[in-house]
């Protein structure tokens, strides 16, 4: 079972955090901080695996992948295959890329709700739901069609990311 999905930037700011076992908000922050503490000290060109037992308790593993300014992290137990989890991160990022065309950190920051939707189509209650990025994009498009059908809210243009870049 997947216990948690986290996306955080290289400064340790959480961009997405999902826990499939309920955690209090304090505990969530603590976990995010500890994971970042370990991640930031990792060199390039090392493995994508980390010992997570000290952070998440026994029977937990962690894989992560570093893309530009973001870390994508999956925490899971021994019933999952480590490399398959790593592949899942890749699928997630490829799907984001298809949805946002050259996805960058700001896309994720400003499209918080959409990231949630995509993740929910991919991981369901801690289990892998869909692994095909084509299918994922289809599902997400259907949802956005439903959303726009019932209200006519203006789209946030992609330029918003440049629009208030600090």
């Amino acid at each position: 079972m997947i216990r948690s999905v986290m996306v955080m930037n290289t400064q340790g700011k959480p961009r997405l955090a999902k826990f499939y076992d309920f955690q209090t908000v304090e505990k969530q922050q603590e976990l995010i901080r500890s994971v970042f503490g370990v991640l930031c000290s990792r060199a390039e060109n090392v493995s994508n695996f980390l010992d997570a037992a000290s952070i998440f308790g026994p029977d937990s593993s962690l894989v992560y992948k570093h893309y530009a300014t973001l870390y994508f992290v999956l925490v899971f137990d021994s019933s999952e295959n480590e490399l398959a989890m790593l592949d899942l991160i890749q699928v997630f990022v490829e799907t984001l890329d298809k949805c946002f065309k050259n996805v960058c950190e700001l896309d994720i920051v400003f499209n918080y709700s959409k990231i949630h939707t995509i993740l929910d189509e991919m991981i369901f209650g801690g289990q892998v739901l869909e692994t095909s990025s084509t299918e994922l994009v289809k599902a997400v498009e259907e949802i956005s069609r439903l959303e726009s059908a019932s209200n006519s809210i203006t789209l946030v243009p992609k330029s918003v990311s440049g629009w208030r870049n600090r």
Partner: protein
Amino acid sequence: MALSGMRGLSVFISDIRNCPNKEQERLRVDKELGNVRTRFKNEKGLSPYEKKKYVWKMLYIYMLGYDVDFGHMEAVSLISAPKYPEKQVGYIVTACLLNENHDFLRLAINTVRNDIIGRNETFQCLALTMVGNIGGRDFAESLAPDVQKLLISSSARPLVRKKAALCLLRLYRKNPDVVNVDGWADRMAQLLDERDLGVLTSSMSLLVALVSNNHEAYWSCLPKCVKTLERLARNQDVPQEYTYYGIPSPWLQVKTMRALQYFPTIEDPNTRRSLFEVLQRILMGTDVVKNVNKNNASHAVLFEALALVMHLDAEKEMMSQCVALLGKFIAVREPNIRYLGLENMSRMLLVTDVQDIIKRHQAQIITSLKDPDISIRRRALDLLYGMCDVTNAKDIVEEILQYLSTAEFAMREELSLKAAILAEKFAPDLSWYVDVILQLIDKAGDFVSDDIWFRVVQFVTNNEDLQPYAAAKAREYLDKPAIHETMVKVSAYLIGEFGHLLARRPGCSPKELFSIIHEKLPTVSSSTIPILLSTYAKLLMHTQPPEPELQNLVWAIFNKYESCIDAEIQQRAVEYFALSRKGAALMDILAEMPKFPERQSSLIKKAEDIEVDTAEQSAIKLRALQQTSNALVVTDQRPANGTPPVLGRVMVPSMSSNVDHHVADQGLSQENGTLTTVDPQPPSADLLVDLLGPLAIEGPPSADVQPQQNIVSGVEGVPNAVEATAIVPVGEQTNSVQPIGSVAERFQALCVKDSGVLYEDPYIQIGIKAEWRAHQGRLVLFLGNKNTNPLLSVQAIILPPSHLKLELSLVPETIPPRAQVQCPLEIVNLRPSRDVAVLDFSYKFGNDMVNCKLRLPAVLSKFLQPIPVSAEEFFPQWRSLSGPPLKLQEVVRGVKPMPLLDMANLFNSLRLMVSPGLDPNPNNLVASTTFYSESTRAMLCLARIETDPADRTQLRLTVASGDPTLTFELKEFIKEQLVSIPTASRAPAPAPPAPQPTSPPAAALTDDPGALLAGLL
């Protein structure tokens, strides 16, 4: 991308991003929360869009780490909104903010249920997602049946069904008692026929959960899993969108192989063959390629295949192929593959027979201990720890020690604990063990727990040979300029206890020892000072005749600490000061510490506790558990004060009290052996014996004998043990090593099963595993040394009765510490006889010579093969064997009363197959079997028991076979079993001499050494 956004949300996020510091951020968040709160109060004025916007803001704030303790109701109420966008946000936020026990969830159950059973698929999906993410008990109770229906519904789209499968899985995992899955096996089997790979992936996950709980019910799914795997591995009918970097859905392949690992075995040969074909293809067809993603995916499949091969106990050839692959992986450049290679090699250690192949990669594994990646170093350490045994302990521990000095702090504690455990478990000699621990303390003192140095002190105290060496080593370390406090503790303790053994070595006079230790005192904490004070007191005591100068120095220190604020230090100072003025009486009180009772190392215990795995137990883990349960564990069998110390008296093993009786009783002893121990010194374990021991040896009144001895021993460097043995006349103090558990009962148990423990005492455990085929047998003796000292002069002699041909392979003279030696024994049965073979086993532990004679469970019944017979076969045969000597009858009295059913079970366990209903009289039993020996070949034997329901203590026994000796022996054998049902300790009422049997047992006594011994016992 056409996902709609919310301008208000974006603006808020931008504001947060523009906050220069955390304070500003908090202000902004508080402002927003206040805003949201007021808007929610006046709910009427909110448009659905606004609601949605505010709820998303709350979720964002929540992620930033601020508690959002309001708006829950609003979130939940959005669920019942009629339109998609509000409903959607209601579901998503509820899933994120509320835990499964939240009261509001109950309010929503009805709405959720309506969405699930409704016609709107998008609503179904939303509801399933929320239920699956939360998975509460209330949900399980009221929604599971609907979710189940949805999963198998033929009209629902794949998009809905795959969510239903996972939703059910989540509800089942969290509340297995609530979700009813009885009869789901057939449905699961149907679900596995699914063509859509999305639904199939989810169904496979569900299957894994169900099978891990109860594989029995799901056998019908096994062939389907293999089919699915074949379909994927051969890339048949796999749509493009499920092909990931050229590999047909690696996730589904992995999940399928995971599911297969929950079945203990695969019985159907065809299924097994096709599975192995697929696995072989995966193992051989995977190469390391340039594209990282493709590499990861193909290796995910490969590693899962490896795990499955290990689980299935493949042929040795395939296993070595796997190890070879892993060996290749741990040397590749790709760090992920290296990591997993090491991890899987550790798992491989659980498979028997491949350890030696793994050892070939030791050098490469040691290189991985220097990998730049800590994750890889950790795996390498785990693997080295797992593969360590007596043969490579020295190399591995030295590597770990070397690595310790450069390792990062995060790993040092683990490293030092592991090094200490390995050194203790596999030390080829004890001085090496002391070296390792002292080096460990020297290099990583901060990370060496107290357990580790306590243990080394225990070892040294319990092994006289080691004491001068340890003291000398401690002295060397004290010369180093800056030593760790733990090193001060150990050295001070060792010098205090054994420093006198170094006398006359340069720099080792009591005064020199004192001053070098005292130098450290200003640098240590108050927990170490008490140890130093004891050391001073001991040094004083050992300095005979007293040196006034040293005395004055030490007394001054005691004086100084008499007013110390630390109670422990103060008490010691006061007491030692008073004691040290008592002169000779000091001897008795401050004499050497007694030996420690042998007990399981707390370190090893700790390690075992850590190793307890919380993961779901797959078969491979279960097997590992079984293996460890066979392993030897030193238990504290001797309570410290349990057995009263009886000095100078022979302790007779309790069981031989009924020796006479057994000699009288038909020549076959009920006991499996006695122990004779030649033991010049009491075994080290008993505290009281130890305390009394030295006094007895040294003559209690005149304490001044001891200093002389000490001087002598110091001069010659002879350890105390030697003197002690010289002083005590051998044989005057005899003690016996007591077996653990009843030897006789163990033998009885082994008569009806093929593996188990034959004998155990505090030092050794002898296990047995036997295989019997017709008139031949192969019996393996497992001699396990339970201690950290070697067992010496090991001797095993078989005293075979005349009817058995026995060949014991070579038994090594020494059994290394904690090692297990296997000695196969080939047995051929020449002719029928119920005599037993005896194993004369002896060894030396320390000064104890232990000898025991053990009956081997190569009894008559082992050469029987149960065979069913029908009435048509039985009666003609029974009639054709008419009367003696081929058919013998006897009335047996003094039978242990038991119900007929128990008797039938007893017969079956003796490999005499009872044929129920064959005898028309329900009080009778009829049994049949085939006996194998070289002289008789296979021979049918028939037996009949006629019981008297009025008197269960007597019965009439009739045995028939084609061989007169066989008939007689078998009859006697059965009789013995009936009158002495396994509880041998309660001596059975001796059967009155039956009229028929003459006295062949007596004859056997004279010409058969085995029987002779058994008779004597």
